[in-house]
């Protein structure tokens, strides 16, 4: 564990900068941090300042969601999530890569720490997300010096914060530039397979973290995990806005694919989706398309996409899944939406017949609610 965990890890993860990843943070360390931040103890001055700064930045983040909450303290759930994030980042440490036994143990520890369950209320969901919001943005800077021709190449690599003295000396000696590259830990470096459970537990504890990144491939998007967050209207609007930012068609298609998994086979040992959950998810996807039509780019939805298949099927089976009750359909946005649906109903079934039939079944399940 870094010596000053809050100032060296938690604060950079919330604010930005260099976060230091060291030895694994376990339960005793979390308990020690809780005692250190208790009022009866006097933590180090640097940690006190860092704790206050973290609370302030998390409050700013919550304000962006429209949640007017006080400064979030570093309570047990926050420290457990931070420790789990640290241990997940540790799995990409150059010294632990290639040691599967240690990786499995650390991943299991991270899963235990992150196993908090879904957030109980809006403030808790936002508080957890405010702590981990920048986790997908973590990058690792790699430095490299290459000397010699391709058939006789000598390389020096470093994954520390700055090039080593030997690397700088070699670069200066051979007049070779030090090539620095930023690799995203979440998207490029990735994490080992043994960390799947920890990642899912982290997503379950912080569903906003998963919902804000629907294009991720592994672990795939799970409606079971993100539904608790989307049921808060405030968070649902923020997530839908994020979909429009990413691109309503690719993000919506990712949501629809996850919805098909959610409504058909279920996910692992969790309970199968109910009609009410399916209906809610379809309404959320339709909400994304409404936002796209109102505020997104002026681009027609492709008829062969999964997003279009769901909209066309829902328009056929149960239009109420797509239409808010207070929308007038013969003018304004309602008229445009109706025309889009008509076009999709005409073009999508011959284009993707299998997918269209599956979507009809899904919509029928939702309509049965």
């Amino acid at each position, binding site marked *: 564990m870094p010596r000053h965990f809050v100032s060296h890890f938690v604060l*950079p993860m919330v604010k930005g900068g260099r976060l*230091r990843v060291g030895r694994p943070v*376990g339960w005793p360390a979390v308990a020690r941090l809780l005692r250190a931040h208790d009022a009866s103890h006097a933590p180090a001055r640097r940690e006190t300042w860092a704790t206050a700064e973290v609370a302030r930045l998390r409050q700013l983040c919550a304000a*962006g969601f429209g949640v007017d909450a006080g400064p979030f303290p570093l309570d047990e759930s926050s420290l457990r999530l931070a420790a789990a994030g640290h241990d997940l980042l540790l799995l990409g440490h150059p010294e632990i890569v290639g040691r599967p036994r240690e990786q499995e143990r650390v991943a299991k520890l991270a899963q235990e720490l992150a196993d908090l369950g879904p957030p109980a209320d809006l403030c808790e969901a936002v508080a957890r997300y405010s702590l981990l919001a*920048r986790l997908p943005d973590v990058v690792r800077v790699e430095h490299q010096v290459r000397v010699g021709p391709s058939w006789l190449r000598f390389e020096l690599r470093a994954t520390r914060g700055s090039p080593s003295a030997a690397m700088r000396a070699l670069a200066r000696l051979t007049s070779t530039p030090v090539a620095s590259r930023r690799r995203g830990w979440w998207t490029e470096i990735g994490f080992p397979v043994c960390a799947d459970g920890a990642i899912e537990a982290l997503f379950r504890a912080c569903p906003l973290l998963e919902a804000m990144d629907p294009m991720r491939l592994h672990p795939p998007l799970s409606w079971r995990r993100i539904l608790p967050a989307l049921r808060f209207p405030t968070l649902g609007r923020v997530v839908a806005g994020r979909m429009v930012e990413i691109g309503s068609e690719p993000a919506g298609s990712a949501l629809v694919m996850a919805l098909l998994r959610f409504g058909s086979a279920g996910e692992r040992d969790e309970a199968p989706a109910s009609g009410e959950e399916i209906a809610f998810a379809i309404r959320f996807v339709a909400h994304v398309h409404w936002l796209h039509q109102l505020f997104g780019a002026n681009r027609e939805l492709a008829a062969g996409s999964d997003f279009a298949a769901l909209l066309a099927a829902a328009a056929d089976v149960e239009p109420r899944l797509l239409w808010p009750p207070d929308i007038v359909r013969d003018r304004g946005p309602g008229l445009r939406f109706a025309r889009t649906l008509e076009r999709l109903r005409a073009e999508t079934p011959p284009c993707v017949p299998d997918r269209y039939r599956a979507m009809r079944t899904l919509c029928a399940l939702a309509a049965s609610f």
Partner: protein
Amino acid sequence: MRTSAGRPRDRVAPVPVVCLSRESSLAIRPKSTLILMIAPVAVGQVRFTLPGLAADARGVVSGRDMAARFATLDRVVWFLRLLSAAGDLDACWSGMRLIPVRSPLGLREMLLLLPAPSTEAADLVARAARTAGGQCATGAGRHFVEYRDGRASLGYDVGEVARGPGDFVFYTADKVLYCHAEGERSLVRLLLGLDLLRRPGGSPGTPGDDGVCYVTARRGLGVRLCEYLCHVGVEARAAPCEQAAESAFGLHTGFWLFHIENLPARLSGLMSETPGLALYRPVTDGVAVAAGYRHPVNLAACRVLFREDRLLLLAPRPTGAILLDPAPALADISDLLPLPLLLAGEQPVASARPVRPKRLDVPLRLVYAPEVPTRAKAAYLPWSQVGWLRRLCQALPPTALRGHQVALLDDAVLVMADDELAVLPLGKLLDQAAPGVLVPAGMRLAPAVDPEALARRLGTGENSLLVFPEAGEPPLRIPAAAMQPLDRRILAELTVEERALAAHSHPVAVREETVEIETDPLGPFSLWGLGRR
């Protein structure tokens, strides 16, 4: 029985022998008489049974040709080595033919046919052939009789000319051999197929006795070697060559061939030991052998076998022999150099050498100049006086705040006015000696160079400032980015206002700085004691 020359035939004791006559070869006749097939030539004998034989002035009988028979090919090589070392026998070498023959017993033998210009030359050939384990005969056409030896100092003649089938007929003391030719082998190819021998104790870089040598260079090294030889003043001629590939699908290996008339001894090692270069020593016209090696046969003795219009380079395996047919037309290396390089090489070296100028630096220092009118541009405030500045800023009008910039240093604060510092009589006043150069008021810089030139030399102006806070202290360089407007710097400290504004901003607003991982060294660590207690 008498021979055709009227001499009685020799008779020996009647013992069982193998009589190899034409009629009854390999037939065993017990208690028969040994009949010799050949007889020594008597002194003064002028008529011979075997056609083609003739006696010289000494009475030694010799034919037009010599034939040497060997059981194996390595004995042929041995013979060639001995013959080449024996002397200059150009007439023998020019007509030498190597013919594989099959004897009546079915054995394969190698037959060397070579002309006998004289009996002295025939003696040399016979001595070499017998030393190499072969048999030597003389004659003409297809009939050959044993050449003279110790038992017949003048030579032999046959008693009867054999009429049997065969391309070659050999008459020996006890038999007549009929041999059938099986083609003919190239003697030059045999010589080129022999492995070179390393010279014991010889330096590989030693050129020929007259300093002439050949050097082959890979294609990429040719021009470089031209430049080098031209640079060191060695006269040479060169040409790019293309070695014919054995197959149409093979690689055509190209190289450069250099003919150096007088290679300095100091360059011998360079030519022979540099990868890509190979040094050859000429042994005769049109033939050169890799330096440090020699051919088993003295090629100089058999130079008639090699055409002069070709060039043969003999190298040890795996390179082997390189035949350039015809010999390349060599050009002077100075004509092969690219023109710019040639001009660069011909320029005198001294004129291109840069001359290091002597330094004429005069140190820049501060001197008192009370006669110079002072016009304060900036103030250098130690942190102990910053409190005064804060209180003064509370009373300054907006125009005064807008017209000043401030930089926070480790030990002081630099306040600089856009025009003239009149409202901040604090700290140490600084005057502008040149654009971006601040010196204490009442002092100036010596030597008094032009201010613009001084600014250019010190690198000040738009990007940085150079402040001389005290005489005798090193100057401080302050980047222009560190200078901030005074009013903005003051307002930045009002954190309450900043927090109130930022509370209503989007969460993206706090995402300004990237999050980078900095890994600490882990070292050994335990995996127990991390779980829930």
